[in-house]
């Protein structure tokens, strides 16, 4: 397909580069900003993890104080979940939803820009807590009443409430946008059962967020009121109940786990067929399994609470539903493996990460099902066994999947290939590093090492494995360094990537690399879930773009930025002085007003 010729695209006034990015409503630019921000937080959060591992390398370590350690492990989780994995997922969503469904942009481009800027302001508020009197230090699920003003005297937990509410707002807006886009803006011929699996997973993730974020918002508001406005929702002395926090939090928190892992499942469902060079095995089953994981995800939350005195019958009910989730997950794993069967597999770096995803996620999945049994859970909950479990799911699963996606889509996004040799080095170092780090944690768990302890005594049999885990974590750090060098070196090279370097079947590969601002000159016809392969087999040729093609694109707007600044100020005001809330409201109101009257044509 021809690359965009001059004259194709939008007519825009010359603007400075910075202003262009600040006011952009282009989903690709917004996706890029999400990606860069998310990866930056990934690096910062990784550094906190290295500090944690350094502290734990030897018994009675004294690299970090107890206070700092507790802030670090809390912020490590918060940043990885809300500021790294979710935005990196949102980055791919933004970039590839319109490209994969054959649309010009998302349904609401300005809302999309607003989501990013609100995310940025929320993330800065949460992150700034490090420098403004101490970060949250009550763990990422912040169990009451430890979070009450009586036990958490500093303002860390206020930053937690306000930061997460703002981040939730951003995720809600983004998810609404994505859901509408996927449901309603598909290319002609692209029925729901012809949607790429990645789009299906995006849709499920969007609905998970749309339906679970309001719950945690309510909990966070109540916590904020408890801390600042004399209510007693979670303080038992005055009739409150800390169990309520746990229910509301995990009603959100468990779907959130699927929000983190499903995008990566979508990515490997794209990558594996492409490099096996054959269609995905059992498309319908994979889609159905993904959707049912999403629905079942709302019915298992209390398995996080087996040890709280839930009662026998509820514990057994939630045990059964939790084990039930293993079934669709198993279906997915077997279908991915069957896709490789009979293939002719090209082992690119992206495929390495995808295959590693299957293996590593399987380990995390198995240990998850093990703990669906309250009998096993009561001996392993809150030990390093659970730490191993979540990291096999979130690192071996979510992060491996994201790296697979980065190597897969990099040529499309930048027009340049990442070095395969360097990429494979970073893969193997990361693979070795993550297994060295996280597998020994299983041993630590069965030998009874509790999680979230900043120090431990020698003689419990924990010393050696902790040292191994620390060495492994440094290896992960090295692998990330190799990857960064890879990025900086290859970005200096000229853009040489063809439209479809991997011979992939989905629509994003039908346009140039990188795509023009209007995405497609002409959207190809869609007759299957693998349109490019099917069209080639059927001999359908996408017509060339007509001469003088002019595609109307939405104009850029600075209103999202202003509105986000307003929202950010409201947040800052809630943490400092209520007068700032007033200013924030005024700015937001101006933003909404300007938004609603500004021409969109």
């Amino acid at each position, binding site marked *: 397909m021809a690359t965009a010729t001059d004259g194709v695209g939008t007519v825009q006034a010359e603007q400075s580069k910075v202003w262009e990015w600040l006011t952009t409503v282009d989903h690709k630019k917004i996706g890029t900003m999400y990606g860069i921000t998310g990866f930056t937080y990934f690096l910062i959060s990784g550094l906190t993890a290295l500090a944690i591992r350094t502290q734990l390398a030897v018994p009675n370590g004294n690299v970090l104080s107890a206070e700092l350690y507790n802030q670090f492990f809390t912020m490590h989780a918060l940043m990885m979940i809300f500021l790294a994995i979710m935005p990196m997922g949102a980055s791919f969503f933004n970039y590839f939803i319109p490209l994969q469904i054959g649309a010009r942009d998302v349904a609401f481009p300005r809302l999309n820009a607003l989501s990013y800027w609100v995310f940025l302001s929320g993330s800065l508020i949460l992150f700034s807590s490090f420098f403004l009197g101490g970060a949250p230090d009550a763990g990422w699920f912040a169990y009451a009443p*430890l979070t009450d003003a009586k036990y958490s005297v500093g303002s860390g937990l206020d930053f937690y409430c306000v930061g997460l509410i703002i981040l939730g707002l951003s995720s809600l807006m983004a998810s609404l946008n994505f859901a509408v886009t996927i449901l309603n803006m598909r290319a002609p011929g692209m029925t729901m059962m012809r949607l790429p699996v990645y789009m299906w997973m995006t849709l499920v993730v969007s609905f998970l967020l749309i339906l679970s974020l309001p719950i945690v918002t309510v909990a966070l508001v109540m916590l904020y009121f408890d801390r600042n406005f004399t209510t007693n929702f979670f303080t038992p002395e005055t009739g409150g109940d800390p169990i309520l926090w746990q229910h509301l939090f995990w009603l959100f928190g468990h779907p959130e786990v699927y929000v983190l892992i499903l995008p990566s499942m979508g990515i490997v469902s794209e990558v594996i067929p492409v490099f096996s060079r054959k269609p995905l095995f*059992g498309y319908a089953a994979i889609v159905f399994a993904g959707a049912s994981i999403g629905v079942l995800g709302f019915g298992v939350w209390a398995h996080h609470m087996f*040890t709280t005195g839930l009662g026998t019958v509820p514990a057994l009910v939630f045990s059964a539903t939790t084990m039930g989730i293993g079934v669709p997950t198993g279906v997915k794993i077997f279908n991915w493996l069957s896709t*490789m069967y009979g293939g002719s597999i090209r082992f690119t770096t992206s495929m390495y990460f995808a295959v590693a995803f299957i293996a590593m996620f399987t380990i995390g999945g198995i240990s998850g099902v093990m703990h669906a049994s309250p009998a096993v859970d009561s*001996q392993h909950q809150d030990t390093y066994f659970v730490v191993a479990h979540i990291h096999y799911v979130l690192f071996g699963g979510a992060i491996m999947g994201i790296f697979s996606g980065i190597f897969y889509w990099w040529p499309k996004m930048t027009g340049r290939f990442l070095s395969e040799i360097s990429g494979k080095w970073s893969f193997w170092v990361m693979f070795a590093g993550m297994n060295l780090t996280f597998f020994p944690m299983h*041993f630590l768990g*069965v*030998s009874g*090492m509790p999680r979230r302890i900043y120090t431990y005594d020698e003689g419990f049999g924990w010393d050696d494995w902790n040292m191994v885990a620390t060495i492994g974590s440094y290896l992960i750090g090295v692998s990330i360094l190799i990857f960064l060098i890879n990025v900086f070196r290859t970005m200096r090279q000229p853009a040489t990537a063809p439209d479809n370097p991997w011979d992939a079947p989905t629509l994003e590969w039908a346009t140039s690399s990188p795509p023009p601002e209007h995405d497609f000159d002409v959207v190809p016809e869609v007759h299957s879930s693998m349109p490019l392969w099917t069209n080639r087999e059927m001999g359908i040729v996408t017509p060339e773009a007509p001469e003088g093609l002019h595609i109307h694109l939405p104009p850029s707007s600075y209103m999202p930025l202003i509105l986000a600044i307003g929202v950010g100020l409201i947040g800052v005001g809630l943490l400092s002085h209520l007068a700032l809330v007033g200013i924030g409201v005024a700015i937001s109101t101006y933003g909404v007003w300007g938004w609603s009257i500004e021409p969109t044509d």
Partner: protein
Amino acid sequence: MTGRSRQIVLVVASFVAVAFVSWLIFIAFDGAAIDKRMSTLNPLSDQAQSYHDVYVLVWWLSGAVFVVIMAATLILSIHYRERPGVEPRRDIHGNTRLEILWTIIPIVIVLIMVVPTFAAVLSVEGDAEEGALEVTATGHQWWFEFTYHDSDGNELFRTANEMHVPVEQAVNVSLVSNDVIHAFWVPALFGKKDMMPGHNNRLWFKSKPGTEGMHYGQCVEYCGDSHANMRFRIFVESAADYDAWVTNQIAKAKWSDDELVSAGREVFVAKACNSCHQVEYSKSDAPDWLVPPTVAAIGPNLSHLASRTTIASALLDRDESSLRAWLKNPPAIKPGSRMPNLELTDDEITKLIAMLDSLE
């Protein structure tokens, strides 16, 4: 070699390789039981045993799934790697029969896990049979308090961080918290349960014959700065030893007229130690200045400190140097400790240690 036999060799080799790795992993898991301090693989009570039985079953099932999927990944990756002249089978889009099969297999595995899980949980929940020992364990930031009751539920005595139970006797533990959520766990004796403020959780256990000895426990629900330092121990003893211990605990603290001890008592009062720590003396005509406070819930009851093996929520052995370090600056040992640095002089500390050592 023909293609067929090469395939067989590949499959066998992959399974052998994965099984070997799994065997190494198994050895390592087993190694976790060698150091038995906090190991979950060393059940010494009926309750821990019934949980352990479920764990073993779940472990073998998981291990089998692990070996199959890892071997399959390996075999498929090697066998179907790109080779010249071999075209991918683009005609395969799925196979309904196979997909139904591997939907049913996980369901069966889940059912195999569900049944013993339900049985084990039902056998452990609830309370012990009649005549069980009644102990209330209270979580504090950051130490454990144990209150022993007689059969009518009347309080007998309080102690801290070290719990004694007779061997082969059922024990009911009432779990409460004085501040935030803590969790109570001795892996060898019982699965963990949370100490929820505003709630009253219960657990029970009955140690197996021949399990006399010291068993390690720790708080396993994150509870603030010194969560890592909140440890405790359970001593399983013969009935005779246990009775002797109870008799000593019920008795009030021994009065000593030793000069250093008397001086220590004065420091104890002068530095307001007794506003947090209770010491009930047996002496009926205790001097006016030594009025024990009625309730001491802020710090552990010290009436029989010298009968314990540890101090500072089982963080340090109870010996002269640890006591000295602790009294010198408690928050340095236990960050966030409710016991502040009292700026005691070495002389005062010496006196206090003498007094504390007299509290057998």
